[in-house]
Each structure stands twice: as structure tokens, then as C-alpha cells.
């Protein structure tokens, strides 16, 4: 045992990043001067020293087999001195110093199925989550929706043909691990039925007071069933947030017919021009239709195309909608406006229009 304690390393933290930096970065660290997008997917950073670094950005499905990681390692050895990195949106970037390697690398990546793009005013990788691949909480699948949507939007990944960057995110439940709350377009999986309680299991698995307290709307009450202490759900009060499920596994929300996806638009995180904004509800519900989620794909595509056609250069989705106004967005995108779009949560009222600033339409 004592031996083991000695041998067992803990709290060493991650490797120091310097070990993995290519020489050109070590040399020019903090001394970059400017950059340019040479072509879609290829960035050139020029250092004060005059050195040039070319980053070639390729799509990945994020979910990667070790076989693919070994492929990337091999490609890095061949084209970029063994150096590569991932981006904050799960693309892979090969850090090339020899300009001549760029085109062969791009060609190889394409053949292998990892196309290059995602820079500038384009659609880059969709930030997403586990879905049915791994998470207990998922109301939709992440990887399947992302694949289906990106197949359809693919031209906008390879070409920089949009007014501005368009960031899409997917999260499979309201926990929003994909941080969809601030994306140009967000796809959010959600439940639409109150939880079912497994009365037999609950007393063994969960603490009643914690479970009752977990509900933000007070929809959970203690109840005795077959002589055992358990809980009941007041269905009208439930907003399907799943917080009870997170604290008590004997409560489940999954429902094949009523789970699905909602679409949100107009969020952003950069400070460029407009301050960061939350995404807002565009479409309250679309069904889960695996494997290709055609309703979701069509809805996202429609919004992208309406945006692409109408927004001005440098205008992110939310900035564009703010300029034209939400009424016009709903009309242009041909999306019905319903009572579900009107906030009725904690700050209900904060977003009621409290002025006479209205873009009236003359009577038809």
C-alpha cells in the first residue's frame, strides 16, 4: 500500500502546452502582427519577425475514433511537422509552415472525409453534446441532428458566402451543455410531458424533501402510494425542466412522441459591434424524426437562407433581426407567432413591448 501511494501520481495537471507548440509559435509567441484568410479554411498569421504560419482547418464530427486520431497524427507528421490543434468549436487545425504543403493537405483531408472550411463569414462546426450516444437526459440525439443539418448547410462551410459568421449549436436537453443559449441558431432538444414517477423505485433511490425542493414551480408534492412515501407531480404546473430527474433517477421524462426539438435564433457571444445576446425562440417544437430529422433540417435551412438573403454585411443573425424587428423576421421566415413565444417565466413582462414604437403596416 505504502509503495502504491508513492508510485501513484496525482494532481499533476495537464501537460504544459509549450511541449506541444511548433517552433514557429514558440519563436513568435505574443509577437503576431496580423492575419489574413487566404482561402476558406486557411488562415495565414504573419509575425513581427516576418514568419508566416498557415492554419488549415478541417471539419470533424467531434466524436472521433482512435483510428481517426491516428490518421490526423499521420497527416500532421507529413504536412505540418507533427503539429496540430483543435479549435473551440471542435475543428482540427494543421499548423503548416511550408506553404507548398497546403494544397496537398487539403486534398488529402477531403479524400479522407474531413473537408476544409469554416473560417470567416461561413458556418463552422456545430457545437453539440452527447445525445443518445451517452447521456441519460437527452430528449433528442445530438450527433444525428448535427450530421443531418451540416450535410444540408455544407456549401456554407466550404464557401464564405454569408453576411457574417453564423454559429449553430445543439443541446439535447435544457441543461444546455452545448451552450445553445447564445448562438445565431440553436437547436434544443426538449420534453413536453410531465415526468412519470416510478413509485416502486423512488423511496429507495431518492430523498423526498430534496426531490420536492428541486422543482422550481412547486409541481412536486409528497404522496403515499401503497403505503410507501413517494411523490406526485401536479401536471399543470410542470414546465418539463427535468430538474427533478437530475436529482432523482426514479423520475423520468423521455417520451417517444412528445420529445423533440425547438429552434432558437439571434444569440451571440462576441463583443463585436453588439453586446452578447441570448438566443430567442423561433419554433417551439419539431418532432424527433431519426435518422435525418427532415423537419429540423428544413427549418434551420430556411432560417439560414432568409438571413443570407436579407442581412447586411457584418450583420450577425441577431443584429439583423434587431434592425428589421421581430414581426418582420416571423413574416420573412414564414414562422407562426404563438403564445409560446411570449415569455411567461421569471422575468415575464421584461420583454413586453412597453412603448408605441411599432412598424405599422398599411392596411392590405
Amino acid at each position, binding site marked *: 500500500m505504502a509503495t502504491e501511494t508513492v508510485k501513484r501520481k496525482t494532481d499533476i495537471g*495537464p501537460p*504544459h502546452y509549450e*511541449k506541444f507548440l511548433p517552433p514557429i509559435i514558440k519563436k513568435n509567441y505574443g509577437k*503576431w502582427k496580423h492575419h489574413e484568410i487566404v482561402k476558406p479554411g486557411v488562415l495565414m498569421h504573419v509575425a513581427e519577425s516576418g514568419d508566416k504560419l498557415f492554419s488549415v482547418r478541417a*471539419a470533424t464530427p467531434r466524436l472521433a475514433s482512435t483510428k481517426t486520431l*491516428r490518421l490526423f497524427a499521420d497527416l500532421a507528421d507529413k504536412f505540418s511537422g507533427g503539429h496540430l490543434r483543435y479549435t473551440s468549436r471542435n475543428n482540427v487545425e494543421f499548423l503548416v509552415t511550408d506553404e507548398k504543403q497546403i494544397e496537398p493537405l487539403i486534398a488529402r483531408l477531403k479524400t479522407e472525409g474531413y473537408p476544409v472550411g469554416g473560417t470567416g463569414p461561413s458556418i463552422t462546426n456545430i457545437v453539440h453534446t452527447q445525445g*443518445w450516444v451517452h447521456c441519460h437526459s437527452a430528449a433528442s440525439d445530438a450527433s444525428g441532428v448535427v450530421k443531418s443539418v451540416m450535410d444540408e448547410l455544407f456549401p456554407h462551410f466550404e464557401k464564405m458566402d454569408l453576411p457574417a459568421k453564423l454559429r449553430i449549436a445543439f443541446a439535447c436537453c435544457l441543461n444546455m451543455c452545448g451552450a445553445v443559449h447564445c448562438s445565431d441558431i440553436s437547436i434544443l432538444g426538449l420534453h413536453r410531458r410531465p415526468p412519470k414517477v416510478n413509485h416502486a423505485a423512488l423511496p429507495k433511490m431518492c430523498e423526498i424533501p430534496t426531490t420536492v425542493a428541486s422543482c422550481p414551480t412547486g409541481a412536486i408534492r409528497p404522496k403515499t402510494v401503497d403505503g410507501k412515501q413517494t411523490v406526485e407531480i401536479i401536471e399543470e404546473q410542470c414546465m418539463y425542466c427535468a430538474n427533478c430527474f437530475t436529482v432523482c433517477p426514479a423520475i423520468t421524462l423521455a417520451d417517444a412522441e412528445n420529445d423533440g426539438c425547438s429552434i432558437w435564433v439571434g444569440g451571440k457571444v462576441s*463583443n463585436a459591434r453588439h453586446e*452578447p445576446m441570448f438566443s430567442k425562440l423561433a419554433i417551439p417544437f419539431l418532432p424527433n424524426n431519426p435518422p435525418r430529422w427532415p423537419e429540423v433540417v428544413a427549418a434551420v435551412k430556411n432560417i439560414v437562407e432568409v438571413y443570407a438573403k436579407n442581412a447586411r454585411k457584418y450583420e450577425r443573425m441577431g443584429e439583423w433581426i434587431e434592425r428589421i424587428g421581430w414581426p418582420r423576421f416571423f413574416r420573412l421566415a414564414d414562422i407562426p407567432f404563438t403564445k409560446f413565444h411570449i415569455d411567461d417565466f*421569471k422575468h415575464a413582462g421584461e420583454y413586453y413591448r412597453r412603448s408605441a414604437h411599432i412598424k405599422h403596416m398599411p392596411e392590405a
Partner: protein
Amino acid sequence: MADKKRSTPKLDELEKGPWPSFVKEMKQAAEKSATAADALGILERSYNDKIGHWKHGGIVGVKGYGGGVIGRYNDIPQDFPDVAEFHTVRVNQPAGWFYTSDALRKLCDIWERHGSGLTNMHGSTGDIVFLGTKTPELEPIFSELTEAGFDLGGSGSDMRTPSCCCGMARCEWACYDTMGLTYDLTMHYQDELHRPAFPYKFKIKAAGCPNDCVASVARADLSIIGTWRDNIQMNKDAVAACATGGKVDIGKDVVAKCPSKCMDWDGKNLSIDNGNCVRCMHCINVMPKALAPGKDRGATILVGSKAPIIEGALLSAVMVPFLKLEAPYSDLKELIGAMWELWGEHGKNRERIGEFIQRVGLGNFLEQIGLEPVPEMVTQPRTNPYIFYDVKK
């Protein structure tokens, strides 16, 4: 492993099309791993049933750590015994997600020996995610990882794995060393990262400039966003080149889009009223050769963003408008320490620090951690008259 292969007609559909296919990845792994094969099988089942088949994880992990592993079980183990247990291991990524081919291969070696061979590069928080293994494999994975120089990331109510944009490694706009800081904080707070002792999770994300390429303002309890205090640097020749280059219409694309309306362009001269510039980056983004952040650089420190569960989503809020950030980052650590102490003592279970601040009030929070209130912290002063004056009788 061929016997493990099942028919997956629905998922096969997702091998088609131009975007890289996760199904291809899973099939590749399934060729070598029974676990991966069952993962594919159970996923096809979900595609048929339209519900997930995973259950809550119990508490699994490595000795001495409270985080880093997410336990996972399925609800039809009779059908998919090789994913009866299917835990993920979060491995702390190197800052900025830089790798050498050798480092990648080393990770692959370990993971092929002890898990499904499926990964996420990377998880949303920033970790390398090893997707799917059994409890007995955890200790071996851990010791081989540490032997290779890697360690686990966070999970549960601890400090989560910090992450950052590539910053000074590759970007001319980095106003401080994001990777240096991230590594420093990660090392400094190893105990807080591995042993959950907070009311809830605490995430740190570091962006080198206001473009915020790691979405820190939306996804981190502590968002560190580079900025500058002095004037935007201007290269007049490059401005002139821009004006004639034909790509940028300085009046329309730059000046008219400046959110603080603090720029002026008469067709020849570009001038900036820097006192009114809100450091949004737009003009610099559009004219990267002509303009650059000032020289007096540091960061704005914001606190409290999070996803909506359960009081609604939050963006981070300004705590320190400007802080110089140089190793050993003592000011920042002092601030973090003070905040953790207060929140640690008074935060409720599962209350993120952003929610805690709203509950106790930013004014009181500042008083307790010893920061002066400044008007930069708010978009406007209060509009309601319900002021808690602390007048003594």
C-alpha cells in the same frame, strides 16, 4: 469482433453526405471494440425507439479524486451487455488544444487498451473525453495517463477544467497570455479541480480579446476577456491601403457599424474618439492590418454565466472592469479566493455563483469580498426605490 456487429439501417443513413460522419467513427471503433459495437447497437435502438437508453450513473471514479469520471449504465443490459457500464473519462486538455502527433498517439494507445476507442475531441467544457469504459478500467487508465503526463479534468461540484482561446500562440489580438494564465490557474487549483467541495460547479474560460473565441461570457462562472485601456493603434498607411483596396468601405463597413459611434472618416482621415470606444473589436476585425488593440493591455473580469437550469440562463457580469494580468496573477487569485470563500460558505447546494450574486445582491457581494462598486459594473443604476439603507438607529 464481427459477431458483435449488428444491423444498423437507420444509422447507416448517416454515413452518407459531405459532412464527416460520426457513424463512420463508431463503426471504425466497433471493428476493434465490443464496447463500441454495443454502443452502436444501442444507439440504433434509440433511433428506433426515439428515446435514449442511458440511466443515471452511480458514483464512480479514481481513488482520491471526486471528479473526472461520469458514470453511465444502460436500461437494457440484457441486450447490450458490453455497454452495461459505459463511463466517460474527462482528461484535462493541454491549454489551447495544441498537440503533437506523438501526444495524440499516446492517448490513443491508452484508450484502445482500456476503453471503447471512442473519444470526443473535445467536450464542451474543453476536456478530452474518453467515451465509454467499465469501472475496473478506471485506475489503470488513470495511472497510464499520469505516466504519460496527463491528468483528469473536473466534474461534479468542483472547479471545472479551465479552457482558453489560442491567444498569443497564434493571434495578434491577444491582450494577455491566455494559455499561460490557463495553465497557471489549472495547476494552482489542482485540489479544487479534483475534489468537489463547492456548492456547485465553477468554470473558468479565458479569451484573449473581446471577440471571445471561447464563448467565455456565456459559458464560464469566471470569464476573463482581454481588453486594453489606451488608444487603438493605427497604421495610417494601412488605413489608406484599405480605403483604396476595394475590399472594405471604411465609411459603411467600419464607421457606420461602430456601436459607440465614436469613429469619424472623411474619406481620407480615420479618427477615433478613444474615450468613447467600448472596445468591441469590430473596426480592428475588419481592418486587421490598419488597426490593433492598444498597448496598455489586460482583461475585464466577469463572473457568473451559466445555462438555464433552473433560474434561467445568465451571461457573466463585470466584476473588475480592467485588470493587468501578469504571472503570478496574484490579484486575480486573490479575487477568486475571496469569491470562493463567500460563495462556499453561503451558497446553497446547486447554486451557481452567478445565481448566488443575484440572490444576495451584487452590492452586498462586493462589500463582502472587499471590492469597490463602480458604475462600469451596471448598464444602469436601479430603477426601483426599494433601497436597503443601512442606517443605524
